[in-house]
């Protein structure tokens, strides 16, 4: 059976219909990415699925005792809150130190264990958040715009890490992203959203769909162009100074 099965989800923010009749199912081991323009309700949908936003219609069924690892879009790290990385991993449940170190090592940030959370860079913080999310050996890893604020090599490396974790833990991955061109390569299924679901399927199917082209455009500046451009390897005429293939195999920028 599916890990998560959501049918006809409706979420309203006052008068606006943020999410409208959306169906989402998540099977074990698959990576599903929700894409969409700003304000398309993709983050709202994700937050509804984890129970942070009440739904106004529809049903969400989760497998019995489903373990969810969640990576929030951002943390509110108030400068008045002293918190080390190690102590953060104890939230909301305390974990043995060996387990915490193992998770930090897995995401490549074990050297940050004693550092204050507020002093980390964006990329370091993302990896710490990811380490916390895999502590309970989740069956589903949920990530909300995990690479916001990272540059392209760093995001590419992050998505590769997520793919590797999926293979190791056998967990499903559900994430929201606006970085179409980067995320496509590491995704099994794409859901393109604009309030409702416009289209969904493999990255190839979605990028070819008219509804997707309508949302993201087909011009040279559009994401589709970027996506194709990476796969065609014809970057020179666009004045691009890096090799996309090496971007995807970039060294971990954090370590």
């Amino acid at each position, binding site marked *: 059976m599916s890990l998560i099965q959501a049918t006809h989800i409706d979420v309203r923010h006052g008068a606006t219909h943020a999410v409208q009749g959306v169906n989402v199912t998540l099977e074990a081991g698959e990576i599903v990415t929700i894409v969409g323009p700003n304000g398309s309700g993709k983050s709202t949908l994700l*937050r509804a699925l984890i*129970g942070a936003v009440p739904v106004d219609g529809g049903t969400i069924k989760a497998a019995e005792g489903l373990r969810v690892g969640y990576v929030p879009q951002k943390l509110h790290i108030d400068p008045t809150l002293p918190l080390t990385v190690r102590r953060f991993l104890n939230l909301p449940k305390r974990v043995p130190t060996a387990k915490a170190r193992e998770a930090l090592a897995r995401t490549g940030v074990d050297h940050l264990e004693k550092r204050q959370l507020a002093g980390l860079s964006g990329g370091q913080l993302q990896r710490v958040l990811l380490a916390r999310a895999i502590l309970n050996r989740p069956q589903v890893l949920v990530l909300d715009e995990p690479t916001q604020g990272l540059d392209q090599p760093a995001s590419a490396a992050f998505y590769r890490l997520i793919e590797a974790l999926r293979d190791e833990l056998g967990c499903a991955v559900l994430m929201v992203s606006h970085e179409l061109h980067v995320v496509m390569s590491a995704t099994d299924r794409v859901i393109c959203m604009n309030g409702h679901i416009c289209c969904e399927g493999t990255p190839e199917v979605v990028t070819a769909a008219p509804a997707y082209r309508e949302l993201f455009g087909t011009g040279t500046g559009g994401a589709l162009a970027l996506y194709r451009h990476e796969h065609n390897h014809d970057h020179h005429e666009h004045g691009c100074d890096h090799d996309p293939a090496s971007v995807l195999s970039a060294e971990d920028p954090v370590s």
Partner: protein
Amino acid sequence: MVRALLAGVGTALACGALGCFIVWRRMAYFGDATAHAAILGVALALMFSISVPLGVLIVALAMGLLVGSLSGATITPDSLLGVLSHGALALGLVAVSLMPGTRIDLDAYLFGDILVVSRMDLIVIWGGAAVVLAVLAWRWQALLAEVLSNDLAHAAGLHPARDRLFLTLLVAMVVAVSIKVVGALLITAMLIIPAAAARMIARGPEAMAVWATCIGIVASAGGLYAARFVGTPAGPSIIVAAAALFCVTAAAGRLRG
């Protein structure tokens, strides 16, 4: 004097750890609004002949719930809290002036009257502190996670909205128990200053809560000492001592880098 000291220590216990959450969640103005409503609570308690701490607790709690329920309208939370906070204080002062017959020592409720605490006051203060500490210990991990991200808390099966109600209740309780010690105008100071001072020298949330409590206790003792031997008003003296300790820890924190 022993009673006064016990009252000060009890208040510091109630305020220390809770004050950390007030600072972390930026609820200083919320604390002010709740505390300022206390004067209205005093007036109503006397009007209906119920115990003053109970009246203060009820009105402070009502204020806390009101503030919590009003948000996201056309006015910023900051201004809204300003309206409620000062509106409640003024309404309380007006209500007290309208009380027929009774003469209320308003200063005692505005600035505290720690030197004349009764045995009953002590029971209320220590009982309140025990409840506050027990609830904080019980919800500690959840409250801490919720400071960082409500979504993260939701995903872990916690209930941030319910825990926020607990915090509101605790702040109301602290107001009810500390009005006798530092007075309605300075209760927020008792919550915030020790926590802010502790921040300068603590590296973890638990350490910060313990330091805040210790700093509150030392400030109470120092303020009482000044009240006794220099003749300054006790409540404000306690806050002055806390502010002085803040300067000390800020300097210490800076030296340590």
